[in-house]
């Protein structure tokens, strides 16, 4: 395609099937403590 560069495809949807293993870090344990920042975390299963 000429007019678009896709940085990432439908990554969110494709994770729906698994349902979440829950092994990932709790967001507030990293470096915030006064805000909620979930989208910047990495999935434990993809490390």
């Amino acid at each position, binding site marked *: *395609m*000429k*007019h*678009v*560069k*896709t*940085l*990432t*495809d*439908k*990554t*969110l*949807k494709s*994770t*729906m099937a*698994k*349902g*979440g293993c*829950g*092994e*990932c*870090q*709790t*967001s*507030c*344990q*990293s*470096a*915030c*403590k*006064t*805000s*909620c*920042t*979930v*989208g*910047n*975390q*990495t*999935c*434990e299963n*993809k*490390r």
Partner: protein
Amino acid sequence: MIHQYKNNGYNIVLDVCSGAVHVVDDLLYDVIACYEENNQNARETTLTSLTDKLTQYSHEDLQEALEEVETLRSRGELFAEDEYESFVMDFKRRKTVVKALCLHIAHDCNLGCRYCFAEEGEYHGDRSLMSVEVGKQALDFLIANSGNRRNLEVDFFGGEPTMNFEVVKELVRYGRQLERQYDKKFRFTLTTNGILLNDEMMEFANREMANVVLSIDGRKSVNDYMRPAKNGKSSYDIIVPKFQRFAELRNQTNYYVRGTYTHYNTDFSEDVLHLADLGFQQISVEPVVAGPEEPYAIQESDLPKLMEEYDKLAREMIKRNKNGNGFRFFHFMIDLSQGPCVAKRLSGCGSGTEYLAVTPWGDLYPCHQFVGQEEFKLGNVYDGIQAEAVRDEFKLCNVYAKEKCRNCFARFYCSGGCAANAYHFHGNILDAYDIGCELQKKRIECAIMIEAALADQEEKEKKEA
């Protein structure tokens, strides 16, 4: 739902529900905007309306762009439907487990920070230190309530945890025993203001702590005004050399220098860059959260300036990355390809369910920011969760339960924001702290723009090679 914006020369289109992110040219950017208005109509109508509206482009260009839009749409990467709400219904019925504790090792502090939500460590109560016995019971509680989760997190928090460091050491030793006994893995973290930090503590932390959070606000004048030592002297001079050494000893990874900016330093990008210039490569500086009656609170009128500052910081980070002296800024970190799954994004930070705070005497609260507010007390480490109704309120707290979040483009990035902030501003954990939302949205936009710029840079370098 889509969200499109222009930043630093990039036209960005987020397809909110699929998670797809596209960088497009002006033509496609304009076509997507019109398409959204017309997407119920047949293609011919859309092309006709595009030709009428976007007179600056030729009919052929518009047709070509429209075909690309339709291709993306058919792949499920544009205008994807939100299919997660039913998933949440199942999600909230499932039994939650506890996987992280914030241990309030000391309700006492050796600094007198003006903005401290913990009231200089006292959290609406008396000064107090956690005993080894309470700490061990907390770890036992965590193991007993963690189900089949293997990775468990324990943050040594305060007040200032180094004021009770022997207990920290003893609890780490105890945790290592439990790991072997129960086949679990503890990730310990330490949040410290650095005043008492010494070589022995650093050596211990480097051996045992998965992450350390080092509190400093940035420039000396900014830091010392908001974070004065108890004798009124500079805390900056005491902590900077120690933090620099600590960061080096940790090979510049698995730590953050973490600061707070306020109404007094709305030019906070200077503080972030100051920390970078001191050699720190992992930096987190975030807005203070305080009621409007506080003179240092972020006000709505600060927002335009703060937005500019995030843009400025983003541009400088791209430049430094190119020049080989890049650093990471926590709130611009975004993992577009390996980010959290939908389940994680929907469950949010986990406060009150997966994540609990423990007071020095063993009471349990939904998170560190609720400590001392009796109506949120969940139970204690001896008897477990007793206030199940409060726990369930947090269990049901997700983006679909929040009116302000339902149609927000950022909902899968912030996961509905901080429950404590919502409560403190609106008296309801299902509300949202509006100034925080505006800043969060801006940070997400900048973070994605940085990804676009870095991808661009990489492509250019490949071509040159």
